[in-house]
């Protein structure tokens, strides 16, 4: 990034793209974690067959549903604690 004042446009784009990229990274990370967890819980490691059987399929579907439910519950719990945490962190930031 340049400090020589090429205009307002670059920071705006950088901010927009950084936010969108961070959102995408969060969702990708969440999907990867969900995949690891649900694979561990629903798929046996002996691999007797190459296809998903009915029990594994239903387990995977319910696993995703419950993962989202836990996501919501955690989100709600952190929302209620969020102000306190940010307040605590704010005072330890680097000064100007």
């Amino acid at each position, binding site marked *: 990034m340049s400090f020589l004042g090429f205009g307002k446009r670059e920071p705006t*784009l950088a*901010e*927009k*793209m*950084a*936010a*969108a*990229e*961070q*959102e*995408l990274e*969060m*969702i*990708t990370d*969440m*999907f*990867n974690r*969900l*995949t*690891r967890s*649900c*694979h561990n819980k*629903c*798929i046996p*490691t*002996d*691999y*007797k*067959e*190459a*296809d*998903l059987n009915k029990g*594994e*399929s239903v387990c*995977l*579907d319910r*696993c*995703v*549903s419950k993962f*989202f439910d836990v*996501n*919501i519950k955690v*989100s*709600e719990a952190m*929302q209620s604690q969020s102000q306190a945490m940010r307040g605590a962190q704010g005072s330890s930031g680097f000064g100007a």
Partner: protein
Amino acid sequence: MDSLSSSEQREFQSVLEKRQTRDMMQFYSNLVQRCFDDCINDFTSKALSTKEETCVSRCVDKFIKTSDRLGQRFAEQNQAMMQGGGAGGAGAGFGGR
């Protein structure tokens, strides 16, 4: 994202493509590690046995089918949350503007 100029869209598209490539590489690496960890436990020889080859082959197929199914359900749940006007997508409660 609708207020981006054409050059901005081009750069964002490039970021997305890099990310997709990176995600495919990570999927590939996860797949290799998962199937190696689950199928390979005997080191009395340095080549794969028939039993190990069969296990890896099934593991690969099953992992891809598992990931596809999870991806579909994940997208459905994400969409339902966004439409429901609740906390938003999996990460929308946190993050950018």
